[in-house]
């Protein structure tokens, strides 16, 4: 199966975050892991400003559902962890 084929299923998630620091942390925490079946599903992450953008391509809807679902589970873990255990460190300069 060719992943560049136009018959592939595509999904784009755009996750807005509060700051560049937070989106950077989320990107680093979530981009490490490869999808278990790289020939049938791929996941690409990138950062646009303070938005985390994720592009999925899959050969089957079933695989897409699992990949997007587990990505959302892990994203939730990251945001929960940031909410509960983050401490105010280098933030974007605040104009007063």
């Amino acid at each position, binding site marked *: 199966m060719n992943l560049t084929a136009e018959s592939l299923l595509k999904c784009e998630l755009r996750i807005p975050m509060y700051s560049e620091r937070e989106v950077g942390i989320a990107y680093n925490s979530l981009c490490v892991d490869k999808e278990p079946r790289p020939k049938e599903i791929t996941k690409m992450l990138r950062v646009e400003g303070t938005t985390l953008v994720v592009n999925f391509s899959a050969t089957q809807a079933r695989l897409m559902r699992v990949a997007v679902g587990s990505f959302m589970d892990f994203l939730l873990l990251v945001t929960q962890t940031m909410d509960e*255990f983050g401490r105010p460190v280098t933030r974007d300069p605040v104009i007063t």
Partner: protein
Amino acid sequence: MPTVIGFEGSANKLGIGIVRDGEVLSNPRHTYITPPGEGFQPRDTARHHQQHIMSILRRALDEAKLTPKDIDCVCYTKGPGMAAPLLSVAVVARTVAQLWDVPIIGVNHCIGHIEMGRQVTGAQNPTVLYVSGGNTQVIAYSQQCYRIFGETIDIAVGNCLDRFARILKLSNDPSPGYNIEQMAKKGEQYIELPYVVKGMDVSFSGLLSFIEDVAHKKLKSGKCTPADLCFSLQETIFAMLVEITERAMAHCGSSEVLIVGGVGCNMRLQEMMGKMAEERGASLCATDDRYCIDNGAMIAQAGLEMFNAGITTPLEETWVTQRYRTDEVEVVWRD
């Protein structure tokens, strides 16, 4: 002295522990317990870890009376274990390492057991029997490597016990092995089972099939009781383990034997191993359920050794792996 936090979630136990200078400051744990007759599946186990990790992390910090700024290094289990649970824990470890701006270290789960066992018991250079639901290995240290002298050629000893408990529909609370151990105390008759030692290795899958068959036939006809089966199973498999451990000790000229891993808190196994050690003039080093069973402190303890030796894992290499052998790790922190 560095303060290190360790995250463990390779199987059905979720644990986070904090250690400093050989002292365990906190070590909370939450176990995913399935109904009798059922094992734990990766997806459900991952969900369990995801649901409890925030509260366990909060407890680890609170019980140690520390705040995030006191932590010098974050360690997590890189493998071996089940992928989805490992990942759930690794994602949180990566996030806190970045939030708190400290290095992260991926730790081999088996090395965690060994280093924690050495720390708790004070064993210097023991022959190690590592027995759990996923692993069965006899290990000795030599030249920067924990070498595997013998291991299971199929399923782990704990897996054999867990699956037998499912056949008898024993409770998984607190663990199937504990309930087999309690029931075995009431056993009165020994039923002969296959004793499968092949050189330095052991095998349990054939034994499990055999006892399953016996259970269905003899229990129905009233020729034996579940307690007899628990007793016979324990006596047989523990004798196999003691035999290969003794052979490794003889080979290494070892005067200490350390038992680690979840099956290691079985008192009957400790008793049999103790007798063997006594006859050889060696000493038995064993720990209780706090450290035998998977926990976060053991990951922190092994991570602390690595951290002190200057090892850290670049963030982009903090993946997890289902297979990660004990002898793949270069043990640079030992002489």
